[in-house]
């Protein structure tokens, strides 16, 4: 295992780790994509290793790398960029390719941006998402709402959610998950409230105590208190099921869930961009392909080749359709199959359209700890243990403490 290295015959064996973040057997799809790439690139073979969730994959990659058995290539969260850099696990792509201009054509700038740091590009967008708003058209109809006019502002959202609930069409008007990726949801609300620089600057997060952030959290809490959302925290993993069961009329979730919802909803559903407070917006999300700092130059080159191959428009389109993730660039959307798909299933294009107003996902040093801290604060507020303003102020200062060693690096 752990391949990596040029064989005597000039062939290169690579190991690639990937998570499956959406339910079901996506491993086959990955295997197919890999197979077609190795076919195209003779002399390279790839062992594609399914490695659990994003978190499992990160653990595995770290652990294995420490023993020099790590992957040559891995799909990992974009938010782990600084963590991987700080651990000196990855290489900037400029060391492998003098001319990276092709990436600007192939990928949407919002996605590309989350691979960039310290004036370098470190990863290629692969399974990318934004948060979108799903709504149950049957429920809308039952509640006397226009199923084709989902909310576009916070006020509308609250109003419609309340209508849904009062009419009894669904138990809850809205669900926004607050565990696991609650920080991601929170970032969306902050963006919508006009907070700047939520993506973090040079791996430093400092937007949390901004007035817009406080407003966002207050708004979120008010919805759990008014009962249009479940009280307390809402589980990331069971939110889609609630939506599919018709328990909630609207949910915010990753577009990565689109295929799941599509194949399991027994009602008509719509997908729309997230509503605006002062402005619309969503963070991007999902994982990129990273080339690891191991093996010889040839190996890294081969890893880069495969990474590049996997992001080619045809494959990106294929992956998008099979998984529900957003195809990562305009070229992919222009492929025939994708065009057909978007026509037949227009919901798929929403996330892409939202990219216009999308911001990179918060990416910080010590990403694991920082996002955990944010999640804890959200949970504390939503469960009534703390007030938004002091909690966020405290949070920001705690995070400042954690990130102090990285300041001004």
């Amino acid at each position, binding site marked *: 295992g752990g391949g990596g290295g040029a064989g005597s015959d000039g062939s290169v064996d690579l190991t690639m780790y990937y998570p499956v973040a959406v339910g079901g057997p996506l491993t086959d799809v990955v295997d197919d994509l890999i197979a077609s790439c190795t076919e195209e690139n003779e002399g390279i073979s790839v062992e594609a290793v399914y490695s659990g969730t994003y978190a499992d994959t990160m653990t595995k990659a770290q652990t294995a790398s420490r023993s020099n058995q790590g992957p040559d290539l891995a799909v990992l969260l974009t938010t782990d960029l600084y963590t991987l850099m700080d651990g000196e696990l990855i290489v900037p792509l400029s060391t492998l390719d003098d001319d990276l201009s092709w990436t600007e054509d192939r990928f949407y700038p919002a996605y590309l941006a989350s691979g960039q740091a310290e004036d370098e590009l470190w990863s290629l967008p692969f399974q990318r998402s934004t948060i979108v708003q799903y709504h149950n058209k049957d429920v809308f109809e039952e509640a006397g709402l226009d199923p084709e006019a989902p909310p576009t502002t916070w006020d509308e959202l609250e109003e419609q959610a309340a209508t849904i609930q009062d009419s009894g069409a669904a138990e809850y008007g809205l669900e926004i998950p607050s565990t696991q990726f609650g920080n991601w949801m929170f970032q969306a609300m902050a963006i919508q409230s006009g907070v700047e620089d939520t993506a973090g600057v040079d791996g430093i997060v400092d937007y949390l105590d901004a007035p817009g952030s406080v407003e966002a959290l207050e708004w979120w809490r008010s919805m759990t208190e008014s009962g249009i959302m479940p009280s307390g*925290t809402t589980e990331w993993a069971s939110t889609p099921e609630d939506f599919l069961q018709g328990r909630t009329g609207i949910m915010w979730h990753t577009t990565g869930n689109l295929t799941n919802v599509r194949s399991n909803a027994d009602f008509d559903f719509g997908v729309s961009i997230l509503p605006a407070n002062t402005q619309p917006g969503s963070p991007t999300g999902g994982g990129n392909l990273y080339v690891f700092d191991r093996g010889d130059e040839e190996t890294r080159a081969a890893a880069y080749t495969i990474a590049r191959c996997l992001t080619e428009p045809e494959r990106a389109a294929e992956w998008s359709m099979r998984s529900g993730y957003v195809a990562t660039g305009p070229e992919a959307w222009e492929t025939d199959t994708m065009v057909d798909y978007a026509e037949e299933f227009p919901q798929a294009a929403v996330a892409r359209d939202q990219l216009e107003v999308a911001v990179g996902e918060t990416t910080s040093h010590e990403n694991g700890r920082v996002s955990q801290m944010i999640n*804890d604060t959200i949970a504390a507020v939503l*469960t009534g243990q703390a007030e938004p303003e002091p909690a966020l102020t405290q949070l920001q200062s705690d995070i400042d403490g954690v990130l102090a060693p990285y300041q001004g690096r």
Partner: protein
Amino acid sequence: MTATTPAARRGGRRLGDQAFAWALLAPAFVVLIAFTHYPIIRSAWSSAHGRNGDLGTAQYERLVQDPVFWQVLRNNLWFAVGTVPTSMALAILMAVWVNNKLVGKSFVRLAYFTPTILPMVAVASIWLFFYSPGIGPIDQVLSALDIPTRNWLGNPDTVLPALMVMMIWKQAGFFMIFYLAGLQNLSPELEEASKLEGASRWYHFRRVTFPLLMPTTLFVFVVALTDAFKIIDHLFIMTGGGPNNASNLLLFYIYDTAFSFFDPNYAGALTMALVVILGLAAILQFTVLERRVHYR
């Protein structure tokens, strides 16, 4: 008390027994050292290093000031208090039940044991569903009975008890197996003698069965206590330690620190804290309990 070993019996004079005992232990110790002791020493070593690689007590100073550490410690103590006695009591009850003549004994035995068989990764998801507000069976039953439902795992007040229930479910049948095996060591004549004395089954249990099961109880107690600090698989799926650390446990925190926060030094310090806590508990258990255990 009466646990004189043959070696003790002969005054331990046989030098051969010493070497022999160590030879028996050797294979196990090779593995233990390689995969437990040595790694622990390594993590102790790394706990003695600060962020920048300096040797020192920085990590332990951090630990003392870390409110999350104290919270997970508190959680864990409550978790142990809430799960250990209950699952042990249930285990004995189950063992006594399925050891008796009981209609459908094998079926009931299987039922009690299923939690042990079911993989934690799957079972946690099923319990997640059981607890999920509204659609979960627990809430369905409660609302059918007009009892207010709640967001079991989303509420800091209920999340830990909810996980304790699941833990008890998971552990009781597991311990039952060992009690069942322990019951086989008891002579049925003792129960007969008690019957003739007119002792109720409860009395016999209290005065005879339970004291004679003490070796098993000591074992189960030690295991249950360490498990209360050790089993965290369900947290990954059910709560992630949330909301706001309300269900976070020490080992999960260690895991997070090591593998989500990639902070091995601090994880090492936390690990040492765990070793010390459980070590103290074990010493206490052995000094207090082992003396009272009647082995033969």
